[in-house]
């Protein structure tokens, strides 16, 4: 499990929506080793406030040279990130954690909500590349249409034929929660593997659906993180049975089998 600490030059900073940005970085070591579902820890300032690195999923790798991140401005760290411009350097550590496990999966459904969609794009590209014929359905949810930005198109552009949307306000696609799309679009005939990332309540609903229909489910989780390399033990989450040692999201995850973890 190779990891790197690098000064990565910013190749491109794109503002996709008022709050969402896409950052392209030159980081060959990380680009050439990263797997879908893995993340990097980004230092947002050389000063001591904000102090800690920020975890961001790898949105995609471009060739074996570039790493792309997609983030939403929610606080001071991401605000500092958004103020950076091409040519400047950013300190990254990664690739970190364990990604999604595609081994031998035939029919895969990706369910993303909000920024949880970021890592699923990398995963979709990997599926398109490796499984043939690729059987991949993508379900995307957001509060409103604009929040999805260019993402639905992005998935189509890489050959995902079935992309369905859901928005809380019905501004595009299904008027309701994305989890509700699962039974509509997943043919019972297949042995589906559902990979999901997004807000906790959304993932909980997805996991519920999977249980009901006997689909396998992989979830990508978020916690506060100080180190990202299993040194601080700050990213603990309880196991499904709520007993035994805690799992650590940065090392045992961020992607887990749904049945491994507790859904409180």
């Amino acid at each position: 499990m190779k990891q790197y600490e690098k000064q990565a030059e910013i190749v491109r900073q794109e503002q996709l929506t008022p709050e969402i940005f896409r950052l392209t970085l030159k980081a060959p070591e990380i680009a050439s080793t990263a797997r879908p579902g893995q993340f990097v820890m980004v230092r947002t300032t050389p000063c001591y406030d904000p102090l800690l690195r920020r975890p961001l999923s790898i949105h995609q790798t471009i060739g074996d040279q570039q790493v792309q991140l997609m983030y939403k401005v929610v606080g001071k760290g991401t605000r500092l990130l958004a103020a950076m411009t091409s040519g400047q350097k950013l300190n990254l550590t990664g690739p970190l954690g364990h990604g999604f496990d595609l081994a031998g999966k035939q029919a895969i459904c990706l369910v993303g909500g909000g920024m949880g969609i970021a890592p699923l794009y990398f995963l979709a590209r990997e599926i398109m590349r490796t499984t043939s014929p690729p059987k991949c359905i993508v379900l995307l949810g957001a509060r409103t249409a604009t929040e999805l930005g260019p993402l639905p198109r992005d998935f189509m552009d890489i050959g995902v034929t079935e992309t369905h949307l859901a928005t809380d306000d019905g501004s595009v696609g299904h008027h309701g929660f994305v989890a509700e799309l699962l039974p509509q679009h997943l043919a019972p005939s297949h042995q589906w593997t559902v990979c999901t990332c997004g807000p906790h309540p959304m993932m909980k609903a997805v996991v519920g659906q999977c249980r009901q229909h006997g689909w396998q489910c992989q979830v990508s989780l978020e916690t506060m993180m100080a180190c990202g390399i299993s040194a601080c033990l700050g990213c603990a989450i309880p196991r499904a049975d709520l007993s035994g040692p805690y799992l650590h999201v940065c090392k045992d995850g961020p992607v887990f089998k749904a049945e491994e973890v507790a859904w409180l």
Partner: protein
Amino acid sequence: MTQPDLRVTIGGLVFKNPVLTASGTFGYGKEFAPYVNLHHLGGVVVKGISLAPRRGNPPPRIVETAGGMLNAIGLENVGLDRFITEKMPYLRGIGTRVIVNILGDSLEEYQTLGQRLSEIEGISALEVNISCPNVKKGGVAFGTDPTMAEAVTRAVCAHSTLPVIVKLSPNVTDITQIARAVEAGGAQAVSLINTLMGMAIDVKSRKPRLANIVGGLSGPAIKPVALRMVWQVAQAVKIPVIGIGGITTTEDALEFLLAGATAIEVGTANFINPRASQEIVEGLARYVTDNRLNGISEVIGGLILP
């Protein structure tokens, strides 16, 4: 040009340089192997070990603060047996001194840990954590009362053949009093500071940001307090002092050495910059060379008072 001499001596042990890593911030060493040449470090202090494995506190366990962070890990650790079987084999190969940080909630537990670890090959010294503010029982009491602190020190020293470093809590009125007590108890060195007890509240939910309610404050924010205490303790005891608290750069390390620390431990900085500890070793070497010193030992206690 000859290699600058960074060696320091603590409890009869010679360290190749004064840069150690702080317990709980460097895992069991291996986690940092991708970033640091471990054998370049003066030593590695591993995550605190208790007799039985500990689950630690429920999440959330950490929260960022201005220039620092609060943690309430609750001393999660694999326990003595698994540490010996799973972690020590790797640690024996890292090419630098291994210091095992121990904690218990009774004199007996401290004794047993001291005894058992003395029998293990590849351990240079023990660091006795009598100060972790995160666990409701044990920890705090020992570190804040001179008599108890001395008793724990005696207990470990009596049952261990390893040099004993006692790690002090900053959450006290007069840290020199505790330092003198553990010196009297037989400690070969003291290390300070552990975290300052703090708290943070999420205004939206009106709940504490840590499940444990309170946690330990660490990072650059606490450096001034740590430096003051190290300076005070260095004047109060004859045994070596290991400085800890917010050390992030070579300059920070030099401040602690000037204040009287014989060595330093890099903690939270490992999270911000996983290469921090090694960069400080390199920085100290440059400092010794640039200032034409015979060795880093010339810096120790070199503070010039007005």
